[in-house]
């Protein structure tokens, strides 16, 4: 409608407890423009989107839609100002048909409207036709393909004809063909004169679609410009790839076990309709340190959960030659394959010491005390914090405690899922040193999942790259730094 509709954000700040999730964020999107907001997992880009939409309240800063200050408003009012959001996870009404789900978005926010406007039906059908849902109008969401569910979300968002459209990872979980069709649709929405803010993990996947890119890291803006400029930006390269990568790999031939400790053979996993892993094969020798590198959503956590026995899968996972299938998750963990989950999952109301004692439940008191002493040497900060509740620790300290608790179980194979998630660079260094000590002083086997390459490579003996549910590269860290890194960004 009005020309020049746009979104303007200045000084936007959000804290969660002691953690600053978004710091002094500034961005602007003009009508008829797509701005790509990129950053690694935990960088705060989804929070920025929620702050704009009013789902979270900003602690400071300004959000202007068409020049109107909306920061701190409830989201239904911001929606009425002309903002719409497409959530990453589809959340349709399951008892209603596709058509009714779209009609919902067309209803006015009035209690007196007991009968729908007769035009609603025609408008809902037109929107469905535009996003390509005409064939499935009368079906229930549960019977639809994954891409169609995403289309319902887009249909609902554009039903309100938003001038500012926020898209949260619109391509996650889609095939290449579906991604192309979605890109087409999104550029059409831009050509209607909307301001589009698109969140994604890396520049590569959105480079052709977006007009400009803004890169974030740990809550702050680190670069802005065209996709090419941002990809060439030094800070961005350092965040994604690390500055100069130092590697200290031991050649695979130095591990003398004839059967690798862990073999993942042709494993596939589906979440309903979305394929999370596709014919993935990796192996880890006893004593080896293997990193699986991949962006958020690539399938790392799924792979680890399959190994830990949390998920059904096709294919084979073997430990020292014997299949793990059929063993319960608890049994797999007790026998020495221990995972540190991405979410940390500490008992936040218990003290540091109690968390560690809990990890050492199956050990004798003497053994347990000895293990705790060793861990306090490995992570000295935990000794100081013994009596503090785990929830009051900083993010980095919590991560150390998570690893320490896992080590209390004396694992043969330690699986670390994104230990750097949301941590500041200085903390990464401490964590990195602790891992190095672990690697040099014990015979432990480690499988590390990371999107932060700087953190993943220095300790690794071998690296796998996981992309869109598939292993696309395998090799030594040195050659990754030389070659594969470019494609990764």
């Amino acid at each position, binding site marked *: 409608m009005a020309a020049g509709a746009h979104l303007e954000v200045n000084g936007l700040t959000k804290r969660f407890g002691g953690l600053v999730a978004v710091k002094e964020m500034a961005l602007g999107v003009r009508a008829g423009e797509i701005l790509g907001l990129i950053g690694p997992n935990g960088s705060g880009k989804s929070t920025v989107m929620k702050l704009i939409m009013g789902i979270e309240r900003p602690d400071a800063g300004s959000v202007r839609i068409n020049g109107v200050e909306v920061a701190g408003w409830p989201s239904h009012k911001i929606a009425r100002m002309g903002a719409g959001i497409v959530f990453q996870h589809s959340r349709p009404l399951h008892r209603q048909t596709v058509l009714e789900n779209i009609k919902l978005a067309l*209803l006015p926010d009035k*209690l007196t409207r007991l*009968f729908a406007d007769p035009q609603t039906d025609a408008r809902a059908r037109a929107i469905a036709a535009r996003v390509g849902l005409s064939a499935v109008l009368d079906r229930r969401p549960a019977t639809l393909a994954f891409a169609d569910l995403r289309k319902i979300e887009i249909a609902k968002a554009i039903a309100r004809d938003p001038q500012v459209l926020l898209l949260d990872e619109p391509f996650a979980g889609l095939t290449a063909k579906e991604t192309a069709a979605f890109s087409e649709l999104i550029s059409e929405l831009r050509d209607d004169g909307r301001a589009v803010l698109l969140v994604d993990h890396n520049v590569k996947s959105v480079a052709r679609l977006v007009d400009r890119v803004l890169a974030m890291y740990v809550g702050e803006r680190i670069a802005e410009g065209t996709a090419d400029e941002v990809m060439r930006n030094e800070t961005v390269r350092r965040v994604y790839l690390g500055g100069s990568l130092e590697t200290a790999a031991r050649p695979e031939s130095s591990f003398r076990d004839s059967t690798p400790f862990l073999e993942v053979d042709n494993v596939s996993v589906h979440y309903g309709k979305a394929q999370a892993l596709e014919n993935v094969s990796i192996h880890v020798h006893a004593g080896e340190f293997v990193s699986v590198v991949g962006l958020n959503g690539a399938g790392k956590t799924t792979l680890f959960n399959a190994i830990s026995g949390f998920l059904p899968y096709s294919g084979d996972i073997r430990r020292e030659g014997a299949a793990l299938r059929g063993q319960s998750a608890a049994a797999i963990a007790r026998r020495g394959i221990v995972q540190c989950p991405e979410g940390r999952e500490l008992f936040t109301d218990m003290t540091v010491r109690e968390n560690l004692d809990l990890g050492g439940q199956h050990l004798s008191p003497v053994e347990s005390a000895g293990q705790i002493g060793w861990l306090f040497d490995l992570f000295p900060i935990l000794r100081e914090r013994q009596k503090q509740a785990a929830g009051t620790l900083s993010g980095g300290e919590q991560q150390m405690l998570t690893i320490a608790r896992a080590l209390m179980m004396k694992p043969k194979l330690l699986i670390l899922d994104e230990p750097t998630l949301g941590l500041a660079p200085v903390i990464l260094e401490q964590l990195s040193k602790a891992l190095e000590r672990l690697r040099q002083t014990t015979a432990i086997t480690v499988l590390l999942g990371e999107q932060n390459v700087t953190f993943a490579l220095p300790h690794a003996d071998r690296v796998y790259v996981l992309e869109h549910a598939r292993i696309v590269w395998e090799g030594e860290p040195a050659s990754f730094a030389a070659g594969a890194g470019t494609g990764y960004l």
Partner: protein
Amino acid sequence: MRSFATARVLLFALGVIVVASFLPLWVTGYILGLLTIAYYFGVFAMAWDLLFGFAGEVNFGPTFLIGTGAYTAGILDNLYQPPIWVCLVAGALAAVTGGVVLALPALRVRGPYFGLTTLVAVLILQNFIVVAASLTGGEIGLTVPDVISISDTTNYEIALWFMAVSGAILFSLSRSPVGLILQASGQDAVQAGALGFNVTKHKLAAFIISAFFSGLAGALLVFYLGTASVGTLVDITVGVQIIIAAVLGGRRTILGAVLGSVFLIAMSEALRPLGDLSNFVVFAMALIVVLLFPNGLLGMLTGTKEPG
């Protein structure tokens, strides 16, 4: 297509109601009395289902709304003897007022706290009734000087048609655009807000409607029974029975709630020879139905399966 289905359901329900209205020709006054109570309970359960099944809020205190309506009507009649319809209107309005006072702060809290707030409200009302015994009759109960009618048949028909009209209104509402927005608010408040819907406003409206029908039904029940007591109208166990009736009948169906109420009251009557065991058996049966048929009796009958 939707409105056609709604009309068909209402037409079918009307047929059942018309048949039920001829029951006094065949059955005894005793059974009519049981059904009369079952129909009022049906309204309680339907009003509760609007809140839980659609707005997604678990109200553990349906009896707070019912009790407020019932006691307001009863006390008013006791003190001033105005025409009964004045007492009924006053009861319904008092329940709505009480509902708003309760819901405004309660809807601001998330998760299980809404339910806990409503639970505490019941305890407060219960204590108030006991403490203000000179006004409310306390633990002994309140006796009202008037009843609507002493004829079993008249009382039965009033309850039946009151239930029919309430059910038609609540059911149509649940199938209307407002009902759709309510469901969206209940299932995913964040997304409903992002689509431009004022979630609190819609949930509050649902609470008010629920309170209105609960309070009115409570007041009518007082003028049928001639008494009001904590044990029959306010106690937590009464609230639990209403909830069981609604879930048993089939949540998110509105009409199933009536089925559940009639079933509960019919079963406890049929099992009366078991003495103290009867309640145990009824609740055990309810538990089995809820566990095996999460869509309730109505779901069992229509064979509908709910995805997700």
